[in-house]
């Protein structure tokens, strides 16, 4: 086993966790995503710069695989817009208490580009700058997507939206 490949194997659990969140908890789809990512990583590993960080590199590959898959599947995946989300949300019985299984299902209903930012930051704990690099988007876009993802997620899990509670502040468009 080369050092490179051993380091990839070490990253598989985290790639699986990320894929799991991205697919809203669909195990089969999540592992398909990981497998495609690993295959691409092998096909492209000649392009990996020695000394570069492996983890962001692998996550950016997964991003590309995910975007491609979403593009092909968009017509089949139910994704809600913010407007729909407001209607779907049911009143919370216990505010601030988000059920674990509920939150994952709700993540799966966010727009894919919101899901990615939300999970990279909240679960994988990449910095905003790292997240921007992985997704090839500007930092400002990371911030606005993150805010909107969290707002929508609260609605989907039946909590009041940020725009409701913080009515004095403008929603980032």
């Amino acid at each position, binding site marked *: 086993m080369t050092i490179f490949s*051993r380091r990839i*194997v070490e990253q*598989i659990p985290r790639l699986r*966790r990320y894929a*799991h*969140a991205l697919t809203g908890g669909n195990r089969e789809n999540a592992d398909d995503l990981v497998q495609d990512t690993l*295959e691409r990583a092998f096909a492209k590993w000649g392009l990996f710069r020695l000394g570069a960080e492996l983890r962001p590199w692998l996550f950016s590959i997964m991003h590309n695989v995910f975007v491609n898959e979403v593009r092909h599947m968009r017509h089949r995946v139910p994704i809600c817009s913010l407007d729909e989300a407001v209607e779907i949300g049911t009143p919370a019985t216990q505010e601030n208490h*988000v059920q674990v299984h509920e939150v994952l299902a709700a993540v799966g209903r966010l727009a894919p580009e919101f899901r990615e930012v939300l999970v990279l930051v909240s679960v994988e704990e990449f910095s905003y700058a790292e997240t921007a690099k992985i997704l090839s988007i500007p930092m400002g876009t990371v911030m606005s997507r993150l805010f909107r993802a969290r707002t929508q*997620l609260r609605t989907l899990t039946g909590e009041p939206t940020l725009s409701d509670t*913080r009515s004095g502040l403008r929603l980032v468009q």
Partner: protein
Amino acid sequence: MTKSQAPISDDELMAFIDGALTPTRQRRIEQLAQHDDELADTIAALLAQRNALRDSVDSVLYEPIPQRLLQAEAPSHRSFQRVAAAMAWVAVGITVGSLTSWQYLSRDDSASTELSSVRHGTDLPRFVHQATVAHAVFAPEVRHPVELGTAELEALNAWLSGRLGRNMQAPDLARLGFSLVGGRLLPAETNKPAAQFMYENRQGQRLTVYLRGMAKPTPETAFRYVGAENVSTFYWVEKNWGYALSGDLSRPQLLEAARSLYDQLST
């Protein structure tokens, strides 16, 4: 209850939630929240959401990795070098490398004829592959190297005995300077799960012992050695049980440990 006098931007609120603010700005928001119930509620909800999201997927980190992911390879039209690289990645052992990679990796039929005789012979290469991959995955683990640690040694022994269907006592390698970290159950073959015990010395070097019932009657072996770049393995089969000891140690050191294990683990 009043609206914030100095409103916080959305970006700043997010950075607060993610702990990305400077201590000064972090404190400023904490102070504002003390006088702004809505802001305090929002922060509490967002933090709860962040934790819930993490909790909802964290367990995936500690699941065994599905075989198909450990067998991932580059697409079939790649160059020979790439094939070799992919095989080296998964096959782990150099000695059994060609055998193992053929069995688990290659979709290339040209390689299959000369090796087909081994295909139905023994699951020893598969066993060694599983053992070395399990070592590669869990030995570097910092937070969760084992499922049950030494604090629950009795439970660990009882659990693994039950699941493996044999008397199972975690072997002792203290004489060689390695103390038990704990162990875990791993999927291997249908109705034949595997056990892994992990050991660590004072320098933080780790050894893993991997064993399972062999899938079909497998000839007994003497000690066999497989050395790769950063991990070496001694393995053997006795009475239809496969045993493997893996670690980044010199061959004589590893052999001494293997002998000690052999004495302790014989059924």
